[in-house]
């Protein structure tokens, strides 16, 4: 079918891009390329690429380890070195991977970092994580202090504060590391390409406003944000990828199709949800199945905004290269204050015509989890839509209790159903499908 061919194109493209990047990393030493470890939120990929540096994102490696069922062993390996059960599972998976030979997601060895770059300080764990890596690798660290959006905006002073650090500390360090001088025109080219891909990404994410939604904006969404949030932003590859993806989604809308799941096209759309919080990676498909089996599609999620809330209007702006980078650092989702996060969730519930908000609270992620119960109550109050709460972890398989999560999710969906019916009854579709309980004659 032509549809499947098109679907394969964007997935194959992404796969190819990832493989290419990891093979560059595997041969970095021989090719003389320098490697910078950095994190997804507020990453400065365009700047790094303009110096021909190769970025590595440790939390992406950790989530990949989770999906490949390797994180459990890595986590316990890290615990042998004294990391407590309550430490962020991304950190432990990364440390465990490092201690087990540092083999990356594609099976190739990852090079050690030449620089550790921290460009988002809203997550305290990130700092501790790089302290650990610094001890392992004994390499230089650059830490940009990025102010929290305490009042809900990035003020000119805050922007200047970050720009000054990029100019005064980061660029000199990158020049020294790469042996190249800062080329602002080159940076602008990267930023221009970023913005083009970002436009298509936003189009794809917002396609979920359709009924039925052609995409799952959470489980499917994490694949869609892959290139833009990591090493490919600012590249022609990213532009191509999002162009392909957009065409595929457009095709699905025209055909009236729902999202593609690991088991093919999703059946009829019964519930539209907004999800807050990262997914669980160790049981990703199992978790997703619990949704699509019930006809629940996620129309918007905050996790797909961790690397930038593009749908609020932000685009990388080549005319203000350093300012735009500063804005990007300060604009990632977890750097927003709680009232802004609540506003965003309410906006999603309303604009995407969702039936409610579901929070997947992550045991070891304070950046996301702090304040979630308050957010949940507030969104319920403002939108009048029911909210639900499940708890899992990122990559520690010990904290995924399938029966319990399924039970809660089903209860939540039935609660939505009950509310929809105005409370007199609660059955989902008791019209034609009614049968007696024949197992009990």
């Amino acid at each position, binding site marked *: 079918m032509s549809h499947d061919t098109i679907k394969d194109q964007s997935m194959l493209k992404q796969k190819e891009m990832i493989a290419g990047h990891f093979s560059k990393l595997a041969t970095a030493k021989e090719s003389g390329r320098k490697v910078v470890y950095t994190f997804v939120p507020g990453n400065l990929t365009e700047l790094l690429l303009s110096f021909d540096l190769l970025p590595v994102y440790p939390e992406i490696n950790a989530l990949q380890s989770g999906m490949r069922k390797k994180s459990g062993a890595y986590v316990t390996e890290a615990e042998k070195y004294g990391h407590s059960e309550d430490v962020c599972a991304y950190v432990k998976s990364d440390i465990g991977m490092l201690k087990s030979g540092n083999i990356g997601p594609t099976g190739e060895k990852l090079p050690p970092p030449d620089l550790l770059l921290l460009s988002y300080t809203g997550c305290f764990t990130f700092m501790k994580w790089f302290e650990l890596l610094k001890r392992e690798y004994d390499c230089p660290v650059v830490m940009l202090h990025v102010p929290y959006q305490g009042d809900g905006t990035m003020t000119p002073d805050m922007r200047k504060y970050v720009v000054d650090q990029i100019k005064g500390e980061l660029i000199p360090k990158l020049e020294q590391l790469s042996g190249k001088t800062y080329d602002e025109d080159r940076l602008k080219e990267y930023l221009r390409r970023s913005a083009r891909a970002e436009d298509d990404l936003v189009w794809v994410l917002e396609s979920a406003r359709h*009924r*039925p939604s052609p995409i799952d904006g959470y489980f499917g969404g994490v694949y869609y944000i892959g290139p833009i949030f990591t090493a490919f932003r600012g590249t022609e590859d990213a532009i191509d990828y999002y162009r392909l993806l957009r065409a595929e989604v457009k095709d699905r809308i025209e055909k009236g199709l729902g999202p593609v799941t690991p088991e093919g096209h999703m059946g*009829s*759309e*019964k*519930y*539209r949800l907004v999800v807050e919080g990262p997914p669980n990676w160790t049981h990703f498909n199992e978790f997703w199945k619990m949704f699509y089996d019930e*006809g629940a599609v996620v129309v918007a999620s905050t996790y797909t905004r961790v690397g930038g809330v593009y749908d609020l209007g932000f685009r990388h702006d080549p005319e203000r290269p350093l300012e735009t980078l500063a804005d990007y650092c300060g604009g990632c989702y977890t750097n927003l204050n709680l009232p802004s996060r609540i506003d965003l969730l309410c906006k999603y519930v309303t604009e995407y*015509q969702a*039936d409610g908000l579901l929070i997947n609270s992550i*045991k070891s992620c304070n950046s996301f989890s702090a304040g979630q*119960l308050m957010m949940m*109550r507030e969104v*319920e109050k403002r939108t009048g*839509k*029911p*909210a639900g*709460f*499940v*708890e899992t972890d990122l990559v520690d398989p010990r*904290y995924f*209790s399938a*029966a*319990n*999560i399924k*039970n*809660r999710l*089903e*209860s939540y969906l*039935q*609660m939505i159903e*009950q*509310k*929809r*019916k105005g*409370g*007199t*009854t*609660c*059955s*989902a*579709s*008791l*019209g034609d*499908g*009614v*049968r*007696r*309980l024949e*197992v*009990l004659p």
Partner: protein
Amino acid sequence: MNVFCGIDLGSTTTKAVLLDERGDILGRGITNSRSNYFLAAEIARDEAFIGARFTLIDRELSRLSEGDKQSSGFRKRLLTQFRKQQLLSQLHLLRDKSIEEAATDRYRDIGHALNQKLIHIFETMEEGIRRPRLNAGKKSDFFRDQASSEYSRLAESVAEESIPFELLMSIFDKVIILVENQRMDLTFEGNIRTALGACIDGDNAGLADSYAQAVARAAAIPLTELRAIGTGYGRQRLPFPKEMIRSEILCHGLGANISFPGTATVLDIGGQDTKAIQVDARGIVTSFQMNDRCAAGCGRYLGYIADEMNLGVHELGPMAMNSTRHVKINSTCTVFAGAELRDRLTMGQRREDILAGLHRAIILRAMALLARSGGVSNEFTFTGGVANNQAAVAALRKLVSENYGDRKLNISPDSIYTGALGAAHFALRAESESRTESASPMSSSVGGSP
């Protein structure tokens, strides 16, 4: 007569509730869940139908002019005889299977002597059932528990060196599973005739005849189950059609609201989970929280503590009520609490005081869930097995009043049926909905606009 059934497949027990079309409870049934949810559901449902027949008998008897007192005596005797018939059927199966087991090769050296001992044990047990019982204080409603305590008492008395107690018990343990998992006729239809014959002997002929006719009229009323809804942990294991399944959170919310119509907040502490539920005036769940990752502070915690102290679970509450000193227990981790318990006992603290502290610890955990679900509003209904524990109730009452002020606390002695009751009402509602729909055909709004 049309009836509606709700079945709650719990981790420990399976419950069924049968409603008539007005929503009145006709009958209830409960059994232990075994490892076979399928059978457990059938048995609980059969029991609910038996309960329904007895309710119908009550209705018929109340129409007789001879006066309530005498007929209620008859009704009581009839039920006793009926239960006796059920017990005997199960006992006979247990006996036959045990004797079959004793005849296997494994016991060929002691076969005859073993057979004699088993026959003696079962004859004595049967006598015990047939004899009118004076001390009715039985511990459990389940055949397994009743048979187990009687069998082990007798096994202890007949055991000797060549046929030790352990050997006799190992036969019982093996066979009771077979008996529990074998379908046998314990139904109303199968046993009522014998029961009736056994209990109208003493009455005068005219009265006996009118009783028998009342029973016959009750038995003749056709009971048509229009809908059944399943809930509880085992619900996924039964081939219920998807529309016939509700989560136990919704069922507990609705069940509590049916039992106590003013209910706004529900706390359910069961064997393996604790649920804090908020419902609106119609019993619809608006918010809920459950324990997860860890079952600390659930019913099993008390079971473990009872084992540690060599007590029955039902003894914990009354003992804790005799506490005179406040003891603070920090751990709600079941295993740690066991350690803390032993530690405090060696320090010379009183069991009563420690137990009161343990009950408080459970309730503190429940308080945290309640807070997360949106607090405690008026009225507040407490359900689940732990609601029968007076020390837990006392701790809850105190903590709720300290944290939320005066709240009306509802506890039903039948709270164990709350989930099944909610499920049965969902069945009833589904029926009335489908009638409304077929009366005025409207497009179903599944996935429709909010």
